[in-house]
């Protein structure tokens, strides 16, 4: 059952990705509508698949790389659907949906071993920590997507190159606003995630902070985004500088997520 939903999700995300990429090449209201519909259907299937899996294994599927990637991808798509509705930014889909699809495919390629849940994970603090962390990561992913678009559009404007992609990309201000929004959602969530992670660490290991790679890098991420938020709020960082820092932050997030093993779990 879960598997079926999963296959369905991958198929629908695949079609949605194709449709969003086609939107870059062609202007057609029908195509835009279908891209959005396919993605929403895919999101529904993904959500059902996750809920079904959770009810089967009796815990939130966030305990290994496979489950986490899928949850990450779910949060990214959910976030994008929100912004697409609010700002009518179809082109953002062309940048973000493929990432979600890649994550999901990577997730499905990993071995799904049935395993006993380690007692260490059987803590409410862990679920709280992990789900918030992924939602904040998803915000940063969308921010990075929109910031790449920002840099492309800025380049078109500076080099006075007004091609088809220039016409399709949203205005600089809209993209800057989306990026800022993502930051204001992602940063507080990350903060709470780190705090709840520390509490869980205390419960599981007897110490709030153990300075393992994961924790150290999480702190680095926190400082990057704290600097970005501070810069935006006080000095008025915007545009190119903010975009580059946000993209840099996302690369570090990705690196931390993929390369830093959690000494507690694995």
């Amino acid at each position, binding site marked *: 059952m879960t598997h079926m939903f999963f296959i369905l999700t991958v198929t629908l995300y695949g079609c949605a990705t194709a449709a969003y990429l086609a939107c870059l090449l062609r202007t057609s209201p029908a195509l835009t509508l279908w891209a959005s519909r396919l993605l929403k259907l895919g999101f529904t299937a993904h959500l059902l698949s996750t809920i079904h899996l959770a009810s089967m294994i009796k815990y939130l599927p966030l305990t290994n790389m496979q489950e986490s990637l899928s949850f990450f991808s779910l949060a990214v798509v959910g976030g994008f659907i929100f912004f697409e509705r609010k700002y009518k930014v179809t082109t953002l889909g062309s940048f973000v949906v493929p990432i979600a699809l890649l994550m999901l495919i990577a997730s499905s390629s990993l071995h799904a071993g049935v395993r006993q849940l380690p007692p260490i994970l059987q803590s409410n603090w862990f679920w709280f920590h992990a789900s918030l962390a992924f939602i904040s990561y998803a915000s940063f992913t969308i921010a990075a997507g929109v910031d790449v678009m920002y840099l492309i559009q800025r380049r078109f404007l500076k080099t006075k190159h*007004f091609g088809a992609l220039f016409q399709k990309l949203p205005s600089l201000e809209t993209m800057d606003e989306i990026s800022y929004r993502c930051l204001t959602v992602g940063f507080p969530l990350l903060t709470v995630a780190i705090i709840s992670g520390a509490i869980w660490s205390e419960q599981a290991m007897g110490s709030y902070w153990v300075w393992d790679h994961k924790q150290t890098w999480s702190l680095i991420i926190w400082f990057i985004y704290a600097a970005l938020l501070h810069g935006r709020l006080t000095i008025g960082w915007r545009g190119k500088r903010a975009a580059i820092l946000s993209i840099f932050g996302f690369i570090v997030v990705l690196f931390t997520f993929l390369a830093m093993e959690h000494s507690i779990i694995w």
Partner: protein
Amino acid sequence: MNIIVVGLSHKTATVEIREKVAFSPNQIEKPLAELIGLEGIIEGVIVSTCNRVEIYATTRDIAGGIARIKRFMAEYHHLPFESLEPHLYSYHAETAIRHVFRVASSLDSMVVGEPQILGQIKTSYGYAAEFKSSGIILNRFLHKAFSVAKRVRTETKIASSAVSVAFAAVELAKKILGDLSDKTVMLIGAGEMCELAAKHFLNSGAKGVMVTNRTYERAERLAEEFSGEAVRFESFLEHLHRADIVLSSTGAPHCIIGPEDAKEVVKRRRSKPIFFIDIAVPRDIDPKVDDVENAYLFTVDHLQEIVQANLAQRSLEAEKAEEIIEQEIGQFHKWLSTLEVTPAIIALRNRFDEIRRAELDKTVAGWKDLPPDAEKRLESLTIAMMNKLLHAPTSVLKKAGQGGRVDLYIDALRQLFELEALQRDDEELELEE
């Protein structure tokens, strides 16, 4: 019945000639009355805009109709026919349909894709409809033209891009600043293009205007016109940070805004982007301003480039539009031809059926010991015979309708079978689409 078009446009006549033959929309009834009073002209619509004067009419006599309308155009405006004639074009049948569809879709306009022409034709048609100078054919024809124009507008991007410099500036500003409703425009200096662009910005929702000029009185006057704020030229740099869009066109020999000024302004704006448009020659704004982060500088040449690109895009879209029009011509032409053939076929059929019934009734009435099902059999026998007999002429007629020589056939039919004058029944003529 044939549709004919006679007229002139920006492609065949200069504005001096166009204005001489223009019909004033306030007094359109008189020429309309004279038009349908012409011999052989049945319906008529007059379209008169600053770029074209055209008459759409229906007639049975194409050559005569066209000649009479040409003369009418010259005589009505008291112009020598010989001087006007070379500027006039005329179309009939399919070419007339194509022409009007193209005009309504703005493919024949000076600026292809401009949206006014459709409204102008609608208004002209409105007068004709009110005055009842347009009848079943032109009504249908122009409604069709309107729907074709709508289709072209929705299915192609012919009208979607800016083709004037002022409008291109607005579009560009939207690409940088997003929603313009909380944005302020600053006008430095005066100049037609600057003022026009300012108007476009205000129409697109910009919040306010600041005006500065070396002559403060001029700035005040212009500010009043835009209900904006006048700023002294000596201190305009102090106010620059309040502007999101800066339009500059002074006659200054040197740059009046340099990169340092731009840096300062961006700083004071807390890096909110600012959009400079330099319309002046020589330049008002140092090109290095564009290197300042969050400042975007465009010159009139850049805007012109956008306009050129959009025009090229429009001509690509125009090709798609022509295809749509070709499809629609086929449909309309079919309707027009069945318009006359259908009543002829119905009349012929009725005539045959009349005779059949009369003869059948006579036979049945005089027949003693009629077997029980004989009447039914006779009925179906005679119907089958009638259908067989009518089959060939019906299909020939339909084909003739599409070929164009339909009048000849209908005349022959009327005489051969003593059909009464063919009446048109509007409801039956509605083409099933």
